[in-house]
């Protein structure tokens, strides 16, 4: 059992994956000598060489496009997009090529590729460094999308993603990179595409992923002081969604609130709310509520603490749900 930060847990997971399979490559800007701007790939180039940990030119489409060719040649590229807001130059390759090659080839060309994206705000950064574009990828057939929320999941989920034969967009909550937890490397992880109940409760269900899981857990603790019992589910996988545990929870609590940093309009919460309504219509005591970013671009960092859904906004939504 070792105490490890979320960023270090991903490093350890990457290292394990590279040890297990010589076809695993890491590509990205500054991932080699520097070890990545968040040091997630720290030390890997030193140990695995420049052919396996590749400092690429500054061209995101180039990173993903060449990774497609490497995957065709039998490699398993793990591409780092330095920040969420920098993924868009690669969007065409991801959506038109990575996502569609398996389909276009009728299964003859699998695309075993992981695209790591540090996402979310709260780190006082300048524009383009705090975005949450996960719904844009979850909306794209052919991709799978996951988001880790804690060091233990991060360690296992990155390895499971690398082993998968489908392309996976792997969202890392950069604001939680420095959170610590005990990691037992001999434990058996949960399957990758599964959500998990992380706090049990009976009055309402909070649904979150990535950085907002911790916010929801803190909200549940605060609510308990007021005698309210909140269930919290870490969705972990955004495409496919694993909603059976969610339905089970909502049938118990009758109330659901989806929390994410991404804008509410057509965000993950919209799809989840629709599905809960379809599956649990007769169990609902209130409409499914969504707490998230406003329909604005991510604002300047001096107001981001107000922009980001925090404990109070989550509890306010709980109040509104219970008031129905």
């Amino acid at each position, binding site marked *: 059992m070792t105490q490890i930060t979320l960023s270090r847990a991903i490093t350890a997971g990457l290292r394990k994956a590279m040890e297990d399979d010589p076809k695993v490559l890491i590509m990205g800007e500054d991932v080699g000598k520097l070890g990545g701007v968040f040091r997630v790939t720290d030390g890997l180039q030193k140990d695995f060489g420049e052919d396996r940990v590749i400092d690429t030119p500054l061209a995101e*489409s*180039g990173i993903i*496009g060449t990774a497609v*060719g490497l995957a065709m040649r039998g490699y398993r590229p793990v591409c780092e997009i330095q920040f969420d807001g920098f993924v868009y130059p690669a969007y065409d*390759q991801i959506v038109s090529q990575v996502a569609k090659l398996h*389909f276009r*080839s009728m*299964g003859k060309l*699998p695309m075993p590729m992981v695209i790591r994206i540090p996402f979310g705000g709260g780190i006082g950064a300048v524009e383009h460094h705090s975005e949450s574009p996960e719904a844009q990828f979850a909306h794209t057939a052919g991709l799978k999308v996951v988001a880790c929320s804690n060091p233990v999941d991060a360690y296992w989920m990155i390895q499971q993603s690398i082993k998968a034969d489908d392309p996976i967009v792997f969202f890392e909550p950069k604001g939680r990179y420095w959170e610590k937890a005990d990691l037992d490397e001999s434990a058996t992880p949960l399957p990758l595409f599964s959500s998990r109940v992380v706090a049990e409760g009976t009055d309402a269900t909070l649904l979150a992923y990535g950085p907002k899981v911790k916010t929801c857990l803190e909200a549940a603790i605060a609510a308990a002081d007021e005698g309210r019992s909140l269930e919290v589910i870490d969705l972990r996988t955004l495409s496919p969604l694993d909603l059976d545990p969610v339905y089970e929870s909502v049938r118990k609590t009758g109330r659901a609130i989806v929390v994410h940093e991404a804008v509410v309009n057509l965000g993950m919460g919209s799809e989840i709310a629709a599905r809960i309504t379809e599956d649990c219509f007769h169990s609902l005591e209130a409409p499914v509520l969504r707490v998230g970013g406003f329909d604005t671009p991510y604002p300047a960092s001096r107001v981001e603490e107000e922009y980001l859904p925090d404990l109070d906004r989550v509890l306010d939504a709980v109040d509104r749900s219970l008031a129905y």
Partner: protein
Amino acid sequence: MSSASADHPRDGLGPDLGKVFGPSHADGGPELVQLLTPEGELREHPDFSFDGSIEDVRGFYRDLVLTRRVDTEATALQRQGELGIWAQMLGQEAAQIGSGRALLPQDMAFPTYREHGVAWCRGVDPLNLLGLFRGVDQGAWDPRDNNFGLYTIVIGAQTLHATGYAMGMQRDGVVGTGDPERDAAVIAYFGDGATSQGDVNEAFIFASVFNSPTVFFCQNNQWAISEPIERQSRIPLYQRALGFGFPGIRGDGNDVLACHAVTKAALERAREGSGPTFVEAYTYRMGAHTTTDDPTRYRLSDDLEHWKLKDPIARVEAYLKRGGHADDAFFADVQVESEGVAERLREGCRSMPDPHILDIFEQVYAEQTPELALQKQEYAAYLDSFEGAAQS
């Protein structure tokens, strides 16, 4: 033959743009590598020569005629409603056969959607090409069967895939070993319009800085649908390579011998570990962009008439006949064979089975998701709900 080297002589950015562009200078300018003139005369070049046999030239002739037949038959099938659309190769046969026949089995080719001649050289059944244009599939041959990638419609995207694949070859130790059975290279096909795409420029950069064994084979057919080459570049395209740090060569794209020689040199250079080369095959799109296009809206018939005199097949025929390298029986046999190819294409096209809607759910992922499995199940039940529904 000599091969192109990094210091291949060129006199800077000298050429007068007016000499290079435009119908009055459609000869491609002073640096055009030409080994067989439009009249069918052999021509010497200081850096490149065709090192094949007369049998090879006869083989090229056969390839040129048969692939043109495939192309014209597919165009006819579109007119008859059997294909939704077809992207004609007409006029570009020499560029494709010359480069395609320079490839070794272990090399990999990444095409656009117009590389019907290259597909032929790689051994891809022409019927497979029709699936995409008929709408029964999306071009689903297995790229590993013939080392010929899938047709790529997004302009230029495949140049990055080619470069990544070549980087994979470097990691597999199949570049620069000196073993001719082992060393391999990648060829990326694209057009003049694609040179404006970011992906193509990024591919140049990746290939250059990683010294990957990538041959960038640009068929400059002068037109990107309705936009002339002047809208893509103010300098001859092959000169772009210099700015990326690797050699560029302009070959006569209607001369199968020049295209073969230049591509072969570039591929050898790549296989031996000397990095990428840009080959510009200077040619002309004699047909429309696709069967939905109407080139009379944007270009002059004079231009077309000028390029007709440079036909890629006529010059090989003239050469073979004049030198007594092939008799009438040879030409007659190729003609008969081409009719057979066309007939097989017609029949094969019409008998292609339509896809089944329920199959699409299986093809999205290597590991199907429960969500998709459920959607398939629900849609199958919906289909079954119609009275007398018989699902196949």
